[in-house]
């Protein structure tokens, strides 16, 4: 997956804020998930709650996979 551009990331953040401004927290959360999860937070989630939970949240793991390889989740 191509690296998300700053412009794309900012558009997602603005869409999150728009959903929050409408009071739609669930939609804000769904949109927020589209941002690549930073490796240190992916590691935190995997360590504390397990790989399956992390996958089930629907996280975008493109950044961590780019840094640590596609098999990061199963290691």
């Amino acid at each position: 997956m191509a690296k998300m551009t700053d412009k794309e990331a900012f558009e997602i953040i603005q869409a999150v804020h728009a959903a929050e401004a409408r009071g739609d927290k669930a939609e804000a959360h769904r949109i927020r998930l589209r941002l690549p999860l930073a490796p240190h937070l992916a590691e935190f989630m995997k360590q504390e709650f397990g790989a399956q939970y992390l996958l089930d949240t629907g996280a975008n793991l493109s950044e961590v996979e780019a840094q640590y390889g596609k098999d990061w989740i199963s290691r």
Partner: protein
Amino acid sequence: MERIGYLASYAYKLNEDWKAFSLKENSVEAKSFQIGLATTLGLLREIGATKQPDIILLAEKATLAQELTTYANSAEMVNSIKPALEQLEEATGALKLVQDKDAYAKTAQAFSAKRKQGGLPLDAFREFILSHTARLTNRLKGTASVSEKNILRQRKDNLKAANERYMELQREALGLEPMEE
């Protein structure tokens, strides 16, 4: 004259820096960041309202991991966050131990009166709360935006809530009467 020259140059440079900083803070991206922090503060408030030490500790662990990886830009900062993370792990161990009455009662006997407060051991959990609260207080004295300081204050409040619940757990483990409200 040289002295005044240097100082006048410096004063005008400070003025320019502040103008540039204000421009940065008023950019669309900076404003978006500040708006986002309001949601972060709300989430931290909800976490604090649970009054559950395990949730509060894990939230603080995630925050510290974030700070270590993203914001830490000096050896001093790294050398403050790393011990905080180590102490947090020790606090997590104490939180498990305090839920085992027999084991905690035995452990408590190893604490001298000096290392107790109102009969409760100043153990790894209590020490983490004390020193980490002091760290956050020091950061409140530094330069940061109001939104960022609100978050630091909330983190302190959450630690306080965790500490209060932990002290109840200590009393339960040691068979002491609950504190009166």
